[in-house]
């Protein structure tokens, strides 16, 4: 629905700038490659009809552990612009661009975002093993604004004739994100800070938590392949019982067993699935970035109300 308003906005911007007739039958759309599904969606939003986006890590796929194929290298080589997240989220992307012999521009979508450190949070200050910056910056919608601005600037550089359109699209989308952020803020503020506590299976919601004052407790580290200690799991169970936390969530790509068992032992039931690093398929609850953020916030709010 919001997409349609956006399109109308974009179209009117096109018509207003007098480019519409010229662009409608202009050359091929510009090929752009995005490293993972969320960036792919943002590029589509900003680029509209003028770009053809190829997304490397598909919906529901773990972009941390993505293995590119020759098909992907070909897509990168044929692209005019390569959009990556940065903050060491996709270590394979630079290697891929190099081995494919990609000579074009690379946009780091998280450029200018204030990075968050992973360590010393969620009540486990002795956990210094993740003292690196958290790459999941898009989980704060205001960082999403920064993302679309960076993407718009990158697209404008690669395709100067469309600069005005990219700017307009980015501005319209940024407004939607800000509106969404304001809504989310009111919803979270209605819940007392002591009750804003949730358990998730994957420590990827740091930016979201920092923005809305939520305490996130996770039995695993930031990377999906670390294994928790018995002490950590025991502390979590005690904390869930002591603070009567009812909001337990799974995340769309990790092993569900640990969090299922943990919540069973603590006597709570697992709530809906949250989306952190990848969108869902188009039929799922989080097919676009904005829908993903809305889905996550709705689920978190209704979960916290039970606390």
């Amino acid at each position, binding site marked *: 629905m919001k997409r349609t308003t956006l399109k109308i906005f974009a179209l009117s911007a096109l018509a207003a700038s007098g480019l519409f007739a010229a662009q409608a039958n202009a050359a091929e759309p510009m090929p752009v490659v995005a490293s993972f599904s969320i960036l792919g969606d943002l590029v589509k939003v900003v680029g509209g009809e003028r770009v053809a986006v190829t997304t490397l890590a598909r919906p529901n796929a773990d972009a941390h552990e993505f293995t590119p194929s020759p098909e992907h290298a070909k897509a990168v080589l044929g692209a005019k612009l390569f959009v990556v997240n940065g903050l060491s989220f996709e270590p394979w992307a630079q290697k891929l661009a190099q081995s494919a012999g990609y000579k074009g521009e690379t946009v780091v979508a998280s450029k200018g975002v204030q990075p968050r450190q992973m360590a010393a949070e969620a009540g486990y200050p002795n956990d210094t093993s993740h003292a690196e910056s958290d790459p999941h910056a898009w989980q704060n919608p205001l960082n999403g604004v920064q993302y679309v601005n960076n993407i718009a600037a990158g697209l404008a550089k690669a395709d100067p004739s469309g600069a005005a359109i990219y700017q307009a699209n980015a501005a319209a989308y940024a407004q939607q994100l800000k509106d969404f952020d304001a809504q989310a803020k009111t919803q979270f503020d209605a819940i007392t800070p002591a009750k804003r506590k949730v358990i998730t299976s994957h420590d990827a919601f740091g930016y979201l938590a920092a923005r809305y004052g939520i305490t996130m407790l996770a039995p695993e580290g930031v990377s999906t392949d670390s294994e928790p200690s018995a002490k950590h799991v025991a502390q979590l169970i005690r904390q869930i019982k002591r603070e009567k936390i009812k909001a337990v969530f799974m995340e769309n790509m990790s092993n569900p*067993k640990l969090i299922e068992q943990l919540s069973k032992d603590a006597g709570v039931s697992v709530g809906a699935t949250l989306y952190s690093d990848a969108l869902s398929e188009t039929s799922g609850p989080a097919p676009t970035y904005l829908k993903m953020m809305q889905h996550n916030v709705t689920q978190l709010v209704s979960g916290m109300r039970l606390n």
Partner: protein
Amino acid sequence: MSTTLQTLWDVTVGPFAEFAFMRRALVATLALAISAAPLGVFLTLRRMSLLGDALSHAVLPGVAVGFMLAGLSLPAMALGGVVAGLLVAGIAGVVSRATALKEDASLAAMYLLALALGVTLISRQGSQLDLLHILFGSALGVDEQGLLLVAGVASVSVLALAALYRGLVLETFDPVFLAASAASSGGRPWVWQQSFLMLVVVNLVAGFQTLGTLMAVGLMMLPAVSARLWHDSLAAQLLNASAQAAVAGVAGLLLSYHFDTPSGPTIIGCAGVLYLVSLLVSPGGWLPQTLKRPHRVG
């Protein structure tokens, strides 16, 4: 005195009494210790110590087929894994019988083929999900199903090992004699080998799914290797291996609880410490061998 006892209780029994996940991890580990460690002893005797590692890759095509047919369903993926593991081990066994290749060489060839097939199937599917990461469990995430699976497999495999014992020992130490006596009595010597491999595969896949690769392979092989250093008699080796695996499991879980270390690696680390101690002080280890040497020369 009573406070010392109380502390001892808190340190050793308390964690298991308070937390169900600790109890489940303990039971799953002990079940694996009883059934897998003796199988490991036979594997070391047959020079197939690396079978476990090979199988952890060999299950991939089966897991991929299970995923293609039934989506993200753990039972389907696990069943596919068992079938793939059985096929790889079975074909490797047949090849080693029928050709000049030794069992380990034919196994290496088969598991690499299986791994390549699995990776191809998964990328054809277009999904970049790490299927093995989703399927393979961890020591602290043992659920009721997993517990039943490991305990069931352990019970069946202990009974089966008892039934197979005689033939398996003969087949391991003197396959020529077994083949000759089987030929005269009309028996089938390959039955022992194939049933044994089947037991190993089922134990490993149950272990992968419930406790993870490292735990399953580690508890099967490390205690078995150190048990070899302590005894010459096979029966004693089997018991010793199970006992070491059980001790490592209990100690590892407690250490992981008290010192905030990841459980699976800690348990295997404890088995490793037992192995190092065995290397040094066991009858077959370094110290006694060094001390004994002059007598042997004389």
